[in-house]
């Protein structure tokens, strides 16, 4: 079983209907981009799950390091003034 090379891995993103953004649904192997689109259609949209597909070779996805979670995202915790409920308004103002 000495396969010369394995087909590369691709990440698949599907837009389920107009107006919504593409969402990551999973991955698959394919020899090239055209085949990745064809396989994604067969694997991830057999029941009208999508109207548009993006594929990107997995090696090109740059991800944040899970170990940096605290330093990246915790600073947002104490900035409550970025939310509308921080501001006190008279009751007479119904919607703002």
């Amino acid at each position, binding site marked *: *079983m000495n*396969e*010369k*090379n*394995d*087909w590369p*891995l691709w990440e698949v993103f599907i837009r389920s209907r107009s107006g919504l953004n593409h969402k990551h649904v*999973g*991955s*698959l*192997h394919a*020899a*090239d981009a055209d*085949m990745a689109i064809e396989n994604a259609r*067969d*694997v991830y949209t*057999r*029941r009208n799950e999508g109207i548009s597909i993006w594929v990107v070779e997995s090696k090109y996805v740059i*991800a944040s*390091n*899970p*170990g940096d979670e605290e330093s990246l995202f915790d600073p947002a915790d104490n900035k409550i003034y970025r939310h509308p409920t921080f501001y006190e308004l008279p009751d007479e103002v119904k919607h703002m």
Partner: protein
Amino acid sequence: MSESSMLEKFEDKIKREVKIEPREWMPDAYRKTLVRQISQHAHSEIVGMLPEANWITRAPSMRRKVALLAKVQDEAGHGLYLYSAAETLGTSRKEMVDDLLSGKAKYSSIFNYPTITWADIGAIGWLVDGAAIMNQVPLCRTSYGPYARAMVRICKEESFHQRQGYEIMLTLAQGSEEQKAMAQDALDRWWWPSLMMFGPSDKDSKHSAQSMAWKIKRKSNDELRQNFVDATVPQARLIGLTIPDPDLKWNEERGSYDFGEIDWEEFWNVVKGNGPCNKQRLDARNKAHEEGRWVREAALAFAEKQAKRKSEKEQVA
């Protein structure tokens, strides 16, 4: 961060029902357990196509044929979702496929039984997919994110499988005497192997306790088996078929059915590779893999050639 504080953080997430995601720290044994379980699950989907494919060309009507084709295609898709989920843990597709083809990896023993009549297709959809759903619904809440997401997709698709199987059984059970006998015969042969699908009894299941603690598994083997019996017995009765178990009896106190002892000797024998079709299934997978080799190589050669042409064109421009 030290190993012990990472472990503490991991266990805290498990406790709070926060999913574990691919690149986060996890204990090696958790990773290994997941790779084993998810890849076995994927192999089962792939090998599971074989007994059903046996009847695609001989389905009794066009309606049955398109449904069976769609179902078998779904199983291929389910295998793929699961292989992809396992790959996020750092194993490769090639490693997993090699382990299946060499016989090192296990898959569900149910697929080592033969499909000798059309009614077997009904029994598989109704019982085997029914048991699989019973097993898979709690796995939608499993602690590893990619596995849980794959299970959600699979469960959504699987419900049609069980309904198409039950419809086949219903039709046969309402047919001629021969057809009814065929349905009963299929139930007789598939009932016990279906109960075995839930695995060894809790007291004999070596991985269960740790998997439950890590919330990889959410319900025990015996609990799931009981749920399956309770759900399936009335369905058999409704279409006039008899469950082949003289000890089957409603237990008022438990609000569940009591049922007979499973033949564990048969179970372990099939797990060890001595079932009626173990060799046939592995031979079929190996043959398909070998015969597909030139296609995989040609696709890769074509992709390389296209990429080279494209880069040459860009250089000229």
